[in-house]
């Protein structure tokens, strides 16, 4: 059996916030150099609905801009893991730009597909009224996550 299949697989869900960076640093620091782990760093970017854009050109520009920023961020996070002692082929990245009603649902779907044993997320520390009006991705993952551990890094 391939050694990758024996590893415990952590899914680190990130965005461009400081909290995501803290989550990455925490896991890298905690597990760097320890054998038996691999990580996938995931960035889900919800694509606005088609009616948000006035033209296909606008939409393409929006996607390219977000893709380029996110790729740079994911590369940087990947380097943090490698520098902390993870072997290169045990650190993967996924950028998923998609129409999604809920980022939490998308993360959970990917966790199921990749069979990750743990989801790691940063908590943005949003106010109660923000959570009331807009919802919270970390809270929803904690509520709906099944068959996996969930680490919320503050």
């Amino acid at each position, binding site marked *: 059996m391939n050694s990758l299949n024996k590893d415990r697989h952590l899914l680190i869900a990130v965005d461009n916030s400081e909290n995501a960076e803290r989550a990455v640093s925490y896991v890298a620091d905690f597990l760097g150099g320890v054998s038996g782990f691999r990580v996938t760093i995931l960035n889900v970017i919800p694509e606005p*609905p088609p*009616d948000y854009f006035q033209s296909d050109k606008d939409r393409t520009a929006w996607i390219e801009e977000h893709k380029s920023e996110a790729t740079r961020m994911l590369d940087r996070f990947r380097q943090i893991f490698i520098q902390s002692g993870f072997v290169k082929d045990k650190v993967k990245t996924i950028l998923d730009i998609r129409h999604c009603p809920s980022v*939490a649902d998308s993360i959970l779907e990917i966790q199921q597909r990749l069979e990750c044993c743990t989801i790691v997320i940063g908590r943005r520390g949003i106010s109660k009224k923000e959570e*009331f009006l807009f919802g919270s991705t970390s809270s929803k993952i904690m509520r709906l996550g099944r068959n996996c551990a969930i680490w919320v890094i503050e």
Partner: protein
Amino acid sequence: MNENELKDMIAHWAGHDKVPKKLKVVNDTSDFFGIDYDDVLMLDNHPYFIRNYEREGRFSIDEQPKFWVRRALDLSDGDLKIIKMVFHERFNARVGDLTFECFRSPQKEAVILDIVRGHPNFMQGFCVNDASGNIVRVIDYIRGKTLADYILELGKDHEDYFYNHFPSVLDNYVDLVNAIRFLHERDQKHGDIRRDHIIKQKETGLYRWIDFDFNYLHKENMFGYDLFGLGNILAYLTGRGDVTVEQLKESALSVFHQLNTDDLNIIFNNRVVNLRKIYPYIPEALNFVLLHFSVGANIFYDTTHELLADIEEVRDKLRRS
């Protein structure tokens, strides 16, 4: 259709005195500012006689005239319509001290009009492309009062209103929440739920949601803002209007002194939602629902199903009492 035929139709449905001497026929709405009173707008070979801007504030986010929303007479049957033309705008909406990015979406409204065709609790209409492909919405005009105005006329005082009118008002509210659930189940949000976006139709007595062209980039909970709107309306209906801190300070100082921050609306901090402190005959079950929208709330409604389940319970209790 030639000019004389159109003039005959105008004379028939609007009266001879309304026939313009020179008729301008428009089939492209891209420049809606150039469409004037007395013009005829041709949409898919169907003539509409353009009247005033929509000025009642029903089809807009404020009371200013909306130049892209016009009343019009359907010259085939004389029915009054609302014609909504394409106006792209993006802006940051402010709710309390929170802001989020909004945009006006003719596509969204067109999709919802299709979904809710025949539904008794939504405005009715259809969309049609003009000569330049703009999505124009043709909406049946609803005669009647807004829910906001209607409620204020019920009962001689709050207690009279609550015992004699509120149970049927609550029945109507449940229908309206069910209508929003119908949208949510089809992955659509209303987007601008406010008490003046509900019209009580004069002829039928039905309450209808209006205005679905508001869209925004939602965050984790796609329906959170709609639920907030439903909570505000419930508080308004229960209180027979907004009950504000300022009013209480002015007219009920002893009640004012019993209030604390947790009793207030989570977003609009001058509105009281713990209404049982003001009106002790409000049942606890109803107050419990209202407190989900308060500063002191620790759990919120995520879905219309959850809200409806609690409201149904309140309704049953009110019926039994």
